[in-house]
């Protein structure tokens, strides 16, 4: 694994390579996603990167019609709402992410517990481009 910091910078650097990475503490054995430099349980900083399967289940969700500036700029809004939610990974931790491939016009049809697989979204141009984490039904 590359020598990336065990934090958001490292997480998003891996995401750009389409790798979903967490960290495992070598002393406590605890696994964290998103990554962090210290294990909050053991207070040990002895971390290593570990890739996850990208599979998980939907824990909670919403469909947003009035979004933040960066989602409006990505073309979302009242007529083009988006779903985001919390996904519990098979490896244990949960993450927040945009959810694709669900019927955003009928939010009540979206089912908690739906099995999902990670997907990656590129937004922005050139050096400003960023990779975002998403999930879609398997």
């Amino acid at each position, binding site marked *: 694994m590359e020598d990336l910091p065990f934090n958001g910078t490292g997480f998003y650097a891996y995401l750009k390579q389409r790798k979903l990475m967490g960290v495992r503490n070598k002393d406590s054995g605890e696994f964290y996603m998103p990554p962090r430099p210290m294990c909050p349980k053991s207070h040990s900083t002895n971390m290593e990167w570990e890739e996850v399967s990208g599979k998980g289940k939907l824990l909670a969700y*919403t469909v*947003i*019609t009035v979004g933040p500036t960066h989602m*409006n700029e990505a073309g979302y809004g009242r007529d083009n709402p988006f779903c985001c939610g919390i996904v519990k990974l098979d490896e244990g931790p949960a993450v927040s992410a945009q959810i694709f491939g669900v019927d955003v016009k009928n939010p009540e049809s979206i089912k908690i517990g739906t099995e999902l697989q990670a997907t990656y979204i590129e937004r922005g141009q050139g050096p400003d481009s*960023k990779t975002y984490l998403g999930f879609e039904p398997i």
Partner: protein
Amino acid sequence: MAARKLGRGVALVGAGMTNFGAFPGLSTRDLFVDAFVEMRNSVDKGFDPADIESLVIGNYSSTLFENQNFTAPFMATALGLVPIPATRVESACASSGVAFRQGVMNVASGLADVVLVGGIEKETDLPTAKVTDTLATASDSQFENPSGFTFPGLYALLATAYMDAYGATPETFMQVGIKNHENGALNPKAQFGQSIPQIMASKRASAEKRGKPVPSWDDEMGFMHDDRSNPVIAWPMRLFDCSPVSDGAAAMLLVAEEIAHNFTDKPLHIIGTGQGSDVPTYERESLTSLKCAKVAAAQAYEMAGVGPGDIDACEVHDCFTIAEVIASEDLGFFKPGHAHGAIAEGQTRRDGARPINSSGGLKSKGHPVGATGGGQICEIWKQLRGEAGDRQLPGDPSVGMTHNLGGSGMAAAIHIFERRN
């Protein structure tokens, strides 16, 4: 561990607030002066502002809202209180609840006998999109905001989790909004002090005047289900599930219990205080309750030696209607999963067995975030002293509670008040 106690007794002897709303041309310092004047008028026996020994200000983000950091010394300047210590406390929407707790601790420690606590926020100078972005600085900029979350979205997560776990429906949340507007219609300080039927009538009249088709809602629920009158913001949260963008300020005077009689014969004793924190939404063990609030409530109940059944008047942090549903369970008023049934039965209405948010709550009264906790305390001040006018709770309430949340539920400040005379 034995229950924690304050080092000495602390009493609230005055409380005042501005109207909540949009006030172009007024800054937080102007709003705080208004709140201070009303607070001063509420002190039955009067007092000399020169006796104030410390100022604690709750303020979320004058930094971004009005391009003004460092607000505590500016508030002290506006009130002529310098050179006393002036401290700003920031805990997102719980800023003034936490500031109030700091004021209580200030007196309880013996470092001051008379402390002024304030809550201030000035949000409406910015366009709505900038307000949304400013509020979003209280959610996780690294791991929540990139997914597109807004605050309505984060609370909507709790709503879908709650519906899935307990069989509640979006109608549960609509009932909370209807009830809070009904209460807010009786509160002259409220930003949207109209009941839903009043809003329906005014929208019909406006349509008629403009020669547009007059909406034909059958009843309040018809209005709440109508995508035009009540559009979805973050499903299942609609417009009337969301508290508004507001300006406002509140001021509260805390003193050592032994000198309270110099200020009033009807002080409110601070019998319980609690504060808790939690991880961001995605890391939580439960999405159907808020641990920070449960922890804070347990501390406050234990210190006060009272339980949920002893609370006569309660203001909870309904930034979104789902938050009121969950609060009423976290505070022990209803068992987990039972609040939605109790709400449907009308138990949380003013004339119900467990009245909640007699002020109209954040939904109707307004939510100037850093002033919100202070606004809740102002309502309890009025209710326990029998001064709440048309919205006065029956039964001579003497024990009251405030429940003030920060962010997506990453902070909570809870206080319990008692009137003894």
